[in-house]
């Protein structure tokens, strides 16, 4: 066998020269390779990562929309099924963005496969962004499919696309970051399930996916104001239906600050190598 190694005539002190025929810089190639790896992971198990969440969303639509909706009829003058769908889209986006990243990072830590990325020249920022957008894209895919199917079945309007698109981006980014944080901190799969089942899921359900917070009695209406997911659902619902039960500007401001804080925290973890490097 003969394996070509680095050409000897090059000065060994210099990093291997990389031709730029593809038009991308080495940093861009690194980032897209890291991202492709994340996307290829969830696409290889798409029955679990895309199919199952879609089915779950449709079960919610069936139960809360068709069955319960026949009794509730409208909320704030909006048909109940239509009212619920934006919340379900937001839930699909957030849960998938979160669980993808938490599971992917923990799984790679278990297998130590993540060492391949960690020992490469990739910077902490490149690693963090690639992991983040891996889950973000999965969440976006499930959310988009949910939207397309819902639009075909019951006709969901988009009243404020300029609010909806950045709103969805921020929600997806926030939960993708949260997934990264939990994945990095987690030492066993139980840690990820705990965060998802005991923290995330209750916050989402109690944040107003299936109802408007204004319908709640005290102290629950006030308590809902302390649930960060409430503002996200409200923002997404406003983008779709022109109905919000929290200030749109306030929700945006909260999301931007929360995303920035989480991003800064995660970047610090990747830079210091917390629970990633020994």
């Amino acid at each position, binding site marked *: 066998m003969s394996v070509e*190694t680095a050409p000897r005539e090059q000065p*060994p002190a210099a990093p291997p020269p*990389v031709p*730029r025929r593809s038009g991308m810089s080495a940093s861009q190639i690194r980032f897209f390779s890291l991202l492709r790896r994340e996307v290829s*992971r969830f696409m290889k198990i798409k029955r679990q990562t895309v199919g199952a969440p879609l089915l779950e969303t449709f079960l919610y639509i069936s139960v809360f929309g068709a069955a319960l909706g026949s009794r509730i009829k409208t909320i704030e003058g909006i048909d109940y099924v239509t009212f619920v769908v934006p919340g379900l889209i937001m839930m699909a986006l957030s849960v998938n963005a979160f669980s993808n990243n938490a599971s992917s990072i923990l799984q790679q830590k278990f297998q130590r496969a993540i060492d*391949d990325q960690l*020992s490469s*020249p990739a910077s902490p920022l490149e690693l963090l962004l690639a992991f983040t957008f891996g889950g973000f894209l999965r969440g976006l895919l499930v959310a988009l499919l949910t939207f397309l199917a819902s639009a075909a079945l019951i006709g969901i309007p988009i009243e404020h696309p300029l609010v909806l698109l950045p709103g969805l981006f921020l929600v997806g980014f926030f939960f993708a970051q949260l997934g990264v944080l939990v994945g990095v901190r987690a030492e066993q799969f139980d840690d990820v399930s705990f965060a998802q089942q005991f923290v995330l899921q209750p916050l989402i359900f109690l944040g107003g996916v299936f109802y408007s917070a204004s319908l709640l009695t005290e102290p629950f209406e006030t308590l809902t104001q302390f649930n960060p997911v409430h503002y996200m659902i409200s923002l997404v619902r406003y983008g779709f239906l022109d109905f919000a039960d929290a200030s749109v500007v306030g929700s945006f401001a909260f999301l931007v600050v929360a995303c920035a804080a989480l991003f800064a925290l995660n970047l610090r973890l990747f830079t210091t190598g917390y629970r990633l490097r020994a």
Partner: protein
Amino acid sequence: MPEALHISGLVKRYPTGVEALKGVSLDIPQGEFFGLLGPNGAGKSTLIHCTTGLASPTSGQIEIFGHNAVNHYGEARALVGLAPQEPNLDHFLTLEETLDFHGGYFGMPKKDRRERSKELLDAFSLTDKRQERTRTLSGGMKRRLILARALMHRPELLILDEPTAGVDVELRLELWQYVKRINEEGTTILLTTHYLEEAEQLCGRMAFINGGEIVAEGTGPALAKQFGVSSLEDAYLELVGRKELSRAKIDEAIA
């Protein structure tokens, strides 16, 4: 001309307080096949992890071809290929993807990645398996793939952490041939191994590490001389305080 690997005063203290490396200094010139020998827990893997960015040094300096491995990690890591002790392959990926993504992490353009992975899959007799997921590979094939992955980005310094641990005789010999050839072609190699025969066969110089310190360094005969014994094995037994296990002493006792 900078050393392939220059380590000075390297200390690694874990949060538990355990000091795995206690001021290690080591120089490996370009083109050398260098062996790092020592018992379990001596600090071999920690040294490798500090060099490749998998562990953060507490203090000290690591330079790879003159590039600081901490402050200029991008340039430094681009020159290093690591074949770890435990197969750490991603079970979701095929063999081709494993090499392709690795090349991507090192900034190799697509065409270069395609050509290089084909060349390596051929060289390591893995072409037939290229579309299969890594979890379907036998232990020996995983070892070969890990070596191929380490070579994917054409490193100047190849680090082999126990590359033949637990492999059968024929694969061991096959891997020896591979790495000898790579070294002859100019790549500097740092090998850690428990097999002294392996170190004697492959390495020009070697160092004994024990308790987080380099305690001796030199060629096999020089190390034996340093310990006042006749073989590398006896020198090693002296190092770990088990000279009663020396074959000469056992033969003597039997006689």
